[in-house]
C-alpha cells in the first residue's frame, strides 16, 4: 500500500494492491485451512458442499463457540481457564434440576448465568489477589464445579420444560436452509466479543496485559479490574455455553462435557491466538471451532475412520500451530 503514488486509486487498484497486515496472518491461515478442508470434503463426498452442512456446523458447535470466545479473553491476558467444561456440566445440571423443581425457565436461566459469573469471579479474585497461577486456580474451579454437579444429582435429569424445548427447536429459515436460535446466540456472542476486544478500553487493556502485565500496570491501566473481568467473562460464557448445550441435549448430566476445556483451548490456539497472550482475535477462535467441527463432519462422512481420529488430528493441528507460532515469534525478537 505504501507504494501507491497515484492519489486517486480506483477500487480495483486498491483491491489488487491490498496486502493484509501480518497481524491477521494466523487468522487467515485458519480460514485457508477451513476452506481447504471444505473443498476437500466437497470434492470427495457427495452432498458435502451443501450450505446446510456449514449451518449445521454452527448449530452443532454453538456451545463450543461461546466457550471459545470466553477462553480467548482469558488466553489473551496470558491465562488459561480449565474449568469451562465442568461449568458447562454444572449449568446443564442446575437448569435441569431447577426446572424439575418447577422454577420458571427464565429464573432457571438467570440462576445458571449467575452461577457462571460467580465462578469466574471467584477464580479471578484468587488469581489476581492471591497470585495463584491461573492453571491451578481454574483447576480448583474444575473440581468444584464437577463436585457440585455430582452433589446435585448423580443421575441424569432430562429437561421437559416447554419453553426450553421450544427454544431448542426454534429455527430461522433462509429459503431451503435453516439455522437454530442457539447458533444465532453463539454468533451474537462472537460479534459482541469481537467488538469489546477491538473497540473498548477493556479490550485494549486485555491485549496490554497479555503483552506485558507490569507495563500495563505502570501505564496506569486497570489491570486488577480487567484481569478479574476476563475470568468473569469466561465464567459467563461457560454458563451460557452450558445453557446452549442443555438446549442441544435437553438433559442435565454430571458427565456432560468432560474434556471440553481442551476442545475450547485447542480451538483458540488453532484460531491463531498466541498462548502466551497479547495476540489473537475472537473471529479466529470461531474459525478454530469450525475447523475442529469440520474435521468431525469429514470423518463422519468418510465412514471408514473412527471417531478417535478427531482427537489425534486435533493434537496434530495443535502441534503444528504451536510450533509455527513459536518460530514466528522467535524470528521477530
Amino acid at each position, binding site marked *: 500500500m505504501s507504494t501507491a503514488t497515484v492519489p486517486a486509486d480506483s477500487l480495483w487498484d486498491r483491491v489488487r494492491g491490498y496486502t493484509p497486515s501480518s497481524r491477521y496472518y494466523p487468522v487467515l491461515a485458519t480460514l485457508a485451512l477451513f476452506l481447504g478442508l471444505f473443498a476437500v470434503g466437497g470434492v470427495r463426498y457427495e452432498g458435502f458442499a451443501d450450505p446446510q452442512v456449514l449451518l449445521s456446523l454452527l448449530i452443532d458447535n454453538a456451545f463450543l463457540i461461546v466457550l471459545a470466545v470466553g477462553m480467548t479473553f482469558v488466553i489473551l491476558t496470558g491465562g488459561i481457564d480449565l474449568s469451562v467444561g465442568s461449568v458447562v456440566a454444572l449449568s446443564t445440571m442446575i437448569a435441569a434440576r431447577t426446572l424439575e423443581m418447577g422454577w420458571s425457565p427464565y429464573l432457571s436461566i438467570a440462576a445458571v448465568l449467575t452461577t457462571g459469573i460467580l465462578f469466574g469471579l471467584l477464580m479471578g479474585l*484468587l488469581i489476581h489477589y492471591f497470585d495463584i497461577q491461573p492453571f491451578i486456580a481454574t*483447576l480448583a474451579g474444575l473440581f468444584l464445579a464437577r463436585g457440585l454437579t455430582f452433589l446435585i444429582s448423580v443421575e441424569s435429569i432430562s429437561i421437559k420444560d416447554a419453553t426450553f424445548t421450544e427454544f431448542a427447536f426454534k429455527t430461522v429459515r433462509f429459503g431451503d436452509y435453516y439455522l437454530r436460535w442457539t447458533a444465532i446466540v453463539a454468533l451474537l456472542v462472537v460479534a459482541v466479543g469481537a467488538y469489546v476486544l477491538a473497540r473498548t478500553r477493556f479490550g485494549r487493556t486485555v491485549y496490554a496485559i497479555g503483552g506485558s502485565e507490569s507495563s500495563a500496570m505502570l501505564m496506569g491501566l486497570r489491570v486488577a479490574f480487567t484481569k478479574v473481568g476476563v475470568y468473569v467473562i469466561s465464567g459467563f460464557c461457560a454458563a451460557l455455553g452450558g445453557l446452549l448445550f442443555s438446549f442441544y441435549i435437553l438433559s442435565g448430566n*454430571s458427565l456432560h462435557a468432560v474434556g471440553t476445556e481442551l476442545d475450547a483451548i485447542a480451538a483458540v490456539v488453532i484460531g491463531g491466538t498466541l498462548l502466551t497472550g497479547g495476540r489473537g482475535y475472537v473471529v479466529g477462535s470461531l474459525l478454530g471451532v469450525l475447523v475442529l467441527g469440520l474435521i468431525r463432519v469429514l470423518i463422519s462422512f468418510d465412514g471408514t475412520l473412527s471417531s478417535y481420529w478427531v482427537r489425534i488430528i*486435533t*493434537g496434530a493441528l495443535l502441534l503444528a500451530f*504451536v510450533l509455527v507460532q513459536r518460530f514466528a515469534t522467535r524470528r521477530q525478537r
Partner: protein
Amino acid sequence: MPETLSPARRALRHPLLWPVLALAVLLVVNVIATPTFLNIRIQDGHLYGNLVDIVRNSAPVLLIALGMTLVIATRGIDLSVGAIAAIAAAVACTRIVAAGDEAALSTAVMAVTYAVVVCVLLGAWNGFLVSVAGIQPIIATLILMVAGRGISMAITDGQITTVNNPYFSDLASGYVLTLPVAFILALAVFALTALLTRRTALGMLIEAVGINPEASRLAGVRARTIIWTVYAFSGFCAGVAGLVIAANTNSVNANSLGLWIELDAILAVVIGGTSLAGGRFSLTGTLVGALFIATLARTIPNIGIPSEANYLFKAVVVIAVCLLQSPRARALLRVRRRGPVVPVLAKGTAA
C-alpha cells in the same frame, strides 16, 4: 537461624508438618466415623484392612506424582500423564492379547517392557518440545493430553480390551511380603528417585534449573538434558501407573483410564509442599500428598457422603493449600498473628 530454634519450634517450622497433620486429621475423622477403621488383620498370609487398601490405591497417583514432582521442580508441568497412562495400558493389553500364550510370564514381561519403552519415548517427546523447541510446558504437554487418548483408542481400536494374565494382574492385586505389589512398586520408584536426587547432585541441578534455567546454563548445568530427562522420567512413571491401573481391572478403557489423574498428581505434589513456581521439591511431601488423596477418597464414603463429592473436597484442598503458599495470604495472616491467639489462627487456615 535454625540452630537458635528449640526442637519444638523447629518441628513447627518443618515443611512436612501441615501435610502430615492434615493426613492425621483425616485418619482421626475416619476412626471417629468407624472405630474399627485402622484395624488390620492377616488372612491367607496377606494384610487386609482399610489402611492396606489406601496404600494400594495410592500407588498410581504416587507414581505419577513422583515424576510430576521433578517436572514441577524445573518450573514445568506435565498435563499428558493421564493420556500416557492410557497409552501404556493400551499397548500392554493389546500386546498380551496378541501374544501366543496369553497367560505366560514372558508375555507379561514383554508387554510391560514394550509399554514402558513407549512411555519413556512419549515423555522424551514432551521434553523435546519443552527444551529444544522452547514451548511452554503447559502447552507442550497439552498436545499429547489432547491427542493421547485418541492414540490409545487407535491402539485398542476403540474397544475395551480385556486381558487374562495372572502375572499382569499381580501388578495391582498381588502381594509380596504381605504388602500389595502396587505399593511396593511405587515405594521402589520413590526410593530410587530419592536416592538419585538426594544422594547425587542431580536434585540440586534440577532445582537450579527450576530457579533460573538461563543462569544455571551459564553456570555450566546442562539445563536441556536435565529438562529432557525429567519429562522422560515423568513419562516412565505415568506408564507404570497406567499398567497398575489396567492390571487392577484386567482391562483397558482408553476413554476413562487415568482420567483426571494428572490433576490428582499435581494436587499431591502441591499438598506435599513443592512450589509450583519451581526451584524446590520434596519427594517425602509428595508421598504424604498421594497418601492424603487416597485417604480422602476412602474417607468420604466412610463418613456417609456420596463418593462423587470427592471432587468438591479436592477443590477445597487445592484452594486452601494454594492460599497457604501464596505470599499475599501469608502476609495477611502475619498481620493477624500479632494478636494473642497465634497457633489457633494458624491452624484454622490450614485445616
